[in-house]
């Protein structure tokens, strides 16, 4: 039998090595015709342990702007929430929809101020009056503006799918239809889920598009692909003799 740590030892190891919850992660985004598609896996880890099998890595910034986050889970969550709140006040003040450049600037200023100590690597995407936009933002505050991007530990696997594709599928090309782009993003995230230990479980997608009338709509498709369902499962929950069953948690599939 290989030597295994007791639960107490694991916890002690976690706190002593300061292994706070990181998102491991594969996140990516692509520009398509009339919009952007963002994708993310749903595994969050603390060292070698999976902390959340179905966490949400695509964060709301504005009705027309969403942001995927890799790095320290708390940092990505709080940073995006802060900037989302600031964008809302900005909307009230200016009486206009938020622009992606505004959110990008607020995020980079914040991250640069903390000199990289806020460990948030973001993929920011949205559609505004000036069209669709896609950026990566690094923890130190630098940015890239590209037609397709990937971040996180699974980014190498994802970017190869976006850049090159595989035997049966093409990589990114300009002016893709929305559903083609969704398919491409799903394959990129899959590559990360199955080839990177820091990423796993399911695929979340967010599609942000502008129609002919100029109206922007965001379609947040949570768990669009349950790539790793639980294989074996009891049909009926275990019946404890004197405990009343109130509700069955549907997430038992994860």
């Amino acid at each position, binding site marked *: 039998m290989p030597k295994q740590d007791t639960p107490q030892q694991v916890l002690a190891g976690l706190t002593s090595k300061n292994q706070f919850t990181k998102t491991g992660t594969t996140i990516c985004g692509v520009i398509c015709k009339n919009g952007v598609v963002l994708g993310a896996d749903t595994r969050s880890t603390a060292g070698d342990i999976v902390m959340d099998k179905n966490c949400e890595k695509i964060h709301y910034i504005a009705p027309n702007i969403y942001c995927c986050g890799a790095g320290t889970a708390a940092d990505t969550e709080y940073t995006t929430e*802060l900037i989302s709140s600031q964008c809302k006040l900005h909307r*009230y003040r200016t*009486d206009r929809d938020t622009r992606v450049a505004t959110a990008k600037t607020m995020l980079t200023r914040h991250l640069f101020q903390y000199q990289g100590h806020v460990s948030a690597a973001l993929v920011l995407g949205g559609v505004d009056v000036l069209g669709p936009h896609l950026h990566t933002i690094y923890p130190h505050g630098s940015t890239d503006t590209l037609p397709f991007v990937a971040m996180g530990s699974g980014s190498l696997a994802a970017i190869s799918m976006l850049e090159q594709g595989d035997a049966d599928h093409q990589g990114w090309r300009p002016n893709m239809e929305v559903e083609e782009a969704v398919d491409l993003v799903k394959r990129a995230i899959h590559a990360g889920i199955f080839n990177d230990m820091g990423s796993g479980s399911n695929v979340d997608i967010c599609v942000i598009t502008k129609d002919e009338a100029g109206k922007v709509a965001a379609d947040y498709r949570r768990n669009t692909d349950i790539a790793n369902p639980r294989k074996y499962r009891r049909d009926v929950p275990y019946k404890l003799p004197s405990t009343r069953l109130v509700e069955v948690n549907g997430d038992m599939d994860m």
Partner: protein
Amino acid sequence: MSGFDSDRYSFSLTTFSPSGKLGQIDHALAAVNNGSTSIGIKSHDGIVLVTERKLKSALIDKDSIKKVQILADNVGCVYSGIGADSAVLVRSGRKNGEVYRRQFGENPGVDTVAKDLTAKMQSYTQSGGVRPFGCSLLVGGVDPAGPSLWQVDPSGSSIRWKATAIGKNSRTCKTFLEKRVTPDLSLDDAVKIALLSLKEVFDGLLKAEHCEVGIISTEDGLFRKMTDAEVTEQLDGLE
């Protein structure tokens, strides 16, 4: 307030008279009564806020004037009195709403939004070198406790109303409202009564360009302003 020269601005400009009155606050209320009429009505399923938007000149770009303002997803307000002062309060109300939401993870109740405003307004009656705000706000919104309508005054007091009017002609409006407002009003009825009430005291023929209407319904809990087309439709449907 810190940073001021200790001699020149350390004392409050709002001081008691021997009879126990705070003159500056009374004068502020006079400024409110000089302002254009604003009306608010609470129905069982929502709130309506209406104000008169009379432009001093036909050359003014009407769409730039915004008197009915959103404070939070579920709260809006309208003012009577000095517009510039109300802008400061609106900005503060919006920020406090977001601060509350970030701190507690849920939208503030309408009463909390109103009380935060009154706290600010009161502090300007008891601080060095500042004057009270020259406007009253009608704050209306929907929260888990239902719809509520609050009036906040330059003194810093807040009153919850079933229906009320502020600004000039408020007395006439309130008499009109007392007769027409009932507990079982629907939001649609409330909009009509508010516009009728404004029509009563409006100098001339009331059209959509002369008023602003904000509504919030318990159905979606989102405050929004009615478009000119919607207001015209409502006015056409009156009487």
